[in-house]
């Protein structure tokens, strides 16, 4: 092997290494981008879970207090003599109405408090979609030869479209279709 040939080979090897390094870097960047999205989705999930846990604790506490309040009003009503003054009896009646209304509101809160579960499932679904798209784009990136200029732009577009379509088909069905927190359907078989 001549010295010139050796230099050319070394130069070629360096270029190849540089290209591979760029290639690896590009993959790592794409990967990092998708990992950041996943990490942010995870953060949203943790924040929501934390908020839901706190709301459930608050819910139980308010529920206990309401029950106690209700029982106390009943006891006071029993203690009040039949000839007790009208304003006191009216006040007790109002107290009982308030206790009933709080209990009704708490019942409604049971439906609303289920939002955490719906959001967690949607976030898991979206995270899975992001993972699938990352995998498919990485595959296209590994398989193509557009880096050496042999691939036409439309082929690159086709490759990306194919990756998105594969990610879509690999993706499970959307587990949550609800658009609001209204009560869901009930069906007995």
């Amino acid at each position, binding site marked *: 092997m001549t010295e010139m040939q050796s230099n050319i080979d070394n130069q070629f090897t360096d270029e190849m290494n540089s290209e591979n390094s760029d290639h690896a870097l590009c993959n790592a960047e794409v990967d990092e981008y998708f990992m950041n999205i996943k990490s942010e989705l995870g953060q949203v999930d943790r924040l929501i879970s934390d908020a839901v*846990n706190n709301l*459930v604790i608050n819910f139980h506490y308010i529920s206990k207090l309401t029950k106690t309040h209700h029982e106390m009003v009943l006891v006071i009503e029993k203690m009040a003599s039949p000839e007790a003054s009208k304003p006191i009896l009216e006040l007790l009646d109002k107290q009982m109405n308030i206790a009933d209304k709080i209990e009704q509101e708490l019942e409604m809160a*049971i439906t609303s408090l289920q939002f955490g579960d719906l959001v967690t499932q949607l976030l898991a679904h979206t995270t899975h979609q992001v993972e699938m798209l990352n995998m498919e784009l990485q595959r296209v990136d590994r398989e193509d030869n557009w880096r050496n200029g042999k691939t036409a732009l439309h082929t690159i577009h086709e490759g990306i479209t194919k990756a998105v379509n594969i990610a879509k088909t690999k993706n499970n069905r959307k*587990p*949550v279709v*609800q658009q609001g927190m*209204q009560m*869901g359907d*009930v*069906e007995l078989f």
Partner: protein
Amino acid sequence: MAKTILAVDDSASIRQMVAFTLKGAGYEVIQAVDGEDALEKANQHTVNLVLTDINMPRMDGLKLLALLRKLSNYKTVPILMLTTESSDDIKAKGRAAGATGWLVKPFDPKRLLEVIAKVIG
């Protein structure tokens, strides 16, 4: 004697809301975090009704349903699915596997109690 309901869901907040609703109506509630846990508890206790989610880790609700229906003491026990899923194909799978009914989340406590009362009397 109070009837016992096995409530299965991987979401702690859903389990708590279900338990709160059912206990308030006088039912005994056993909670399970997924299908495997539920299967274990179903074998340890006498259960009058199973209320289960579908999407859960380790063992999902449809697999649990199929396995419970293979147990002699769960052949006729009502099993209600409580899930976010509402597509016709998955409902058909549940029905074929032996589900008694299908409730889509979020549930309304009064409606849930009405359905349970209708199913277990």
